[in-house]
Structures are given as structure tokens and as C-alpha cells.
């Protein structure tokens, strides 16, 4: 890993100022960025740690039935503190990586990276959540922009994520056992006005909504409704771990399981 300058601001305003340079890169828990830098795939001149910003940590229900999670909140903290408010989201966080990774990795870091096999993007997209940054709010449907791509501008910081709370939801993850990422992960969220289904690990362009399943499940929230569907007509990741047609098959299977397990 090449050397770099390091800053650990205590406020969002200080972080924003520190990131106002071409050489600067925000650092969440570092569970992806540090391995990437070790491989010299990234070599920022300045790392700005966001983990010292108290106002970006924690899980907080709002008065109007939503849940706000600070961008620097670790997966372990989400698993513990969101359980009473959004069990499916807490369950997703509880199964990311391994215990040590969950103690460092953050929701904001995961979403800023938008790994095509990361778990959180599916929850954010299926929930219709809002990404809150230091300068604006971005709807989930406008946020994800292809593999590792997002709507974030250079230096923009995810300060939090606001989740509407569904009536019931579930996340089903077919684990790639070596990496513990999702080979295929499906998050199903049922709201009073319809069902949203988001798929991670499968799409060649990253997380996507399976709209045919959403329509079918909004009419009939049952496993049979999923079983009757054709597999999604989306270009799939195809690699040594799973061929594209197998991933497409798994999307339907995991969606059915999520519907059956939703609570």
C-alpha cells in the first residue's frame, strides 16, 4: 500500500472541507477500501476517515414511521439496533461478511462502493429508501448506477440512509462461501401500496428491481405467484462461481423463499 496523509474529522463540515481535493478519498470502515489499496488498485493521497463523526452514527426511528441510519454506522450496530424496528434489515446486517468485518464495515461505505454482490444495496432499493448526503437527498431508484457506480459526486458524503418501514419484509442470501458475499441475494419488501423486490449479486449492472415479480406479488403475495414467473430477463453475472442462467434461476428461488419468510 502506498503511503498517504490521514485525517479524522469530528464533524461532517470538517470532513467535507477535507475531501475538497482531487487527492482525497473518504474512508468508512475500510473493509473494502484498505484491501483495494493494498493491491494498489487505489492510491489516494489523503484518506479522510468518517468513523470519528458522532452525528453520522446510530439507528434512529423518526416520528413518521421511518428509520434513519447514520452513514458511519457499523453493520454490527445495525444488526443490534435496527432489530426492533426493521427485523429484515437487521437480519441482513447480521449476515454480512464475518463478525470482525461487521464491527468495522459501515452502511455508508457499502453504499458508496456499490459492489454488485453487496447486501445493503438490495435493502435500500427494495425499501425505496433515501440516501442522505451532506448536500442533498437521493432516492434509491436514482442512486445506483451500474457496477460500482453511484449518483454521488466527488467528495460527497453519505451522512445517512432513511428507510420507510414495510409491513413485512425478508432478505434471502445464497452465500458464496469463500467470500461470504451474496452469490444471489433478494430483498422483498411489502408496503401497503405494493411490493418491491430488489436483487443483488446477480445483475451484470449491479442491484436491480425485478419488476415482473413486484407486479405479481402486489396482486398475490404468495410463493406460488413467484413460481409462476419466468426468470428475470436481465443480463446476469456469469463467472466461475455460478453461470448466468443458474443465477437467474436462484433469483426466482430466493424470491420465493423471501416471500415465504417475510414478517
Amino acid at each position, binding site marked *: 500500500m502506498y*503511503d498517504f496523509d*490521514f485525517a*479524522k474529522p469530528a464533524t461532517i463540515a470538517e470532513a467535507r472541507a477535507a475531501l475538497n481535493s482531487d487527492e482525497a478519498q473518504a474512508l468508512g470502515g*475500510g473493509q473494502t477500501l484498505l484491501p483495494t489499496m493494498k493491491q494498489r488498485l487505489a492510491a489516494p493521497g489523503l484518506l479522510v476517515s468518517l468513523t470519528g463523526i458522532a452525528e453520522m452514527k446510530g439507528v434512529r426511528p423518526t416520528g413518521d414511521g421511518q428509520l434513519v441510519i447514520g452513514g458511519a454506522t457499523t453493520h454490527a450496530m445495525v444488526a443490534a439496533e435496527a432489530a426492533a424496528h426493521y427485523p429484515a434489515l437487521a437480519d441482513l446486517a447480521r449476515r454480512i461478511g464475518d*463478525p*470482525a468485518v461487521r*464491527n468495522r464495515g459501515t452502511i455508508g461505505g457499502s453504499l458508496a462502493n456499490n459492489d454488485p454482490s453487496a447486501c445493503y444495496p438490495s435493502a435500500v432499493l427494495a425499501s425505496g429508501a433515501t440516501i442522505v448526503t451532506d448536500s442533498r437527498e437521493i432516492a434509491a431508484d436514482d442512486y445506483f448506477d451500474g457496477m460500482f457506480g453511484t449518483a454521488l459526486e466527488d467528495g460527497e458524503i453519505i451522512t445517512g440512509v432513511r428507510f420507510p418501514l414495510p409491513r413485512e419484509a425478508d432478505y434471502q442470501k445464497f452465500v458464496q462461501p469463500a467470500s461470504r458475499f451474496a452469490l444471489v441475494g433478494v430483498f422483498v419488501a411489502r408496503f401497503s401500496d405494493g411490493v418491491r423486490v430488489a436483487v443483488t449479486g446477480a445483475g451484470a449492472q449491479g442491484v436491480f428491481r425485478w419488476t415482473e415479480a413486484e407486479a405479481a406479488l402486489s396482486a398475490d403475495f404468495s410463493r406460488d405467484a413467484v413460481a409462476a414467473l419466468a426468470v428475470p430477463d436481465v443480463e446476469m453475472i456469469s463467472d466461475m462461481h455460478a453461470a448466468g442462467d443458474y443465477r437467474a434461476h436462484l433469483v426466482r428461488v430466493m424470491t420465493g423463499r423471501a416471500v415465504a419468510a417475510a414478517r
Partner: protein
Amino acid sequence: MPQVTLSVNGTQMTAEVEGRTLLVELLRDRFRLTGTHIGCDTSQCGACAVHVDGALVKACTALALDLDGADVTTIEGMAGADGTLSPVQQAFQDHHGLQCGFCTPGMVMAAAALLSENPKPTVAEIREYLEGNICRCTGYHNIVKAILAASGQPVDDLAASVA
């Protein structure tokens, strides 16, 4: 160079480090606490696991400067001052929870973190918690047995239960 100060196994320790200095490098190369191992250096294997403010962390994937002021416990801090092994360490010895021993410091730190969160884990919970700790000798069975014993639970039925 910037300075970092940590409480390591109860002792305040300070060093000048580079931005890129990892916690595991600080512990091993500067503080000469070489019980924390570097296995894969890619946050897969868990041989470098330590406790940071009580939480299990892979020391190869944390920057020293990012942890300034933290309370770090390494394998060297697990036994008592008189050399008395911690319950987890004693159980690893009693149940032969190691073969070559390279992964053992990380396994012990993970096991201690597990038991502080969940004092009576099931076998399945133990195995799930150890997902980020790899034993290249594949000696998992006795590691699970040792952790079960350290939690005060019977181990006699273990062979049958996970066969």
C-alpha cells in the same frame, strides 16, 4: 510523522507511524507483540484478530491512526499476570484446539469475543461466528469443542451432533 497512542493490554503505548501503518504492523513491528499473526493479509483468515474497544477486529484491515485512543487487547493480554491461562486458552489446551497453532491467537480472540456476546452459544452459533477465522489444518472440530467447553457446556455429545 503523526503519532498514535493506544492502550494495549492495559498499558499506554505511543509510536510515530505512517498513514498506511496497519494496526497489525504497529503491534508486531513496533510494540513487538508478535502473538498477533499475519496470515493472509487480505482480511480473510482472522489470524490477526484482536479486540478494539471490546469488539473483534482484523488488525490487518484497520489503520493504526484511525484507532488513536482505542483500547486494544491482543493474545498477549489474555492470560493473567502470573501466566494463568484465560478460560478460552485453557479450554484450547485441554481439548487440543490447535494443530500447528498459527491460527490460534485469532481463534482465541474470536472465541473470547463470542462468549462475551453470547455466553452459551450452540455449536451452530460457534461455527457461524468463526466464519472469518480459517484453520489451514482444518482442525475446526476441536476448536468448536474447546469453545463449547469454555462456555461451561458439555462436550461429550459433540462428535455425534455435528457428524
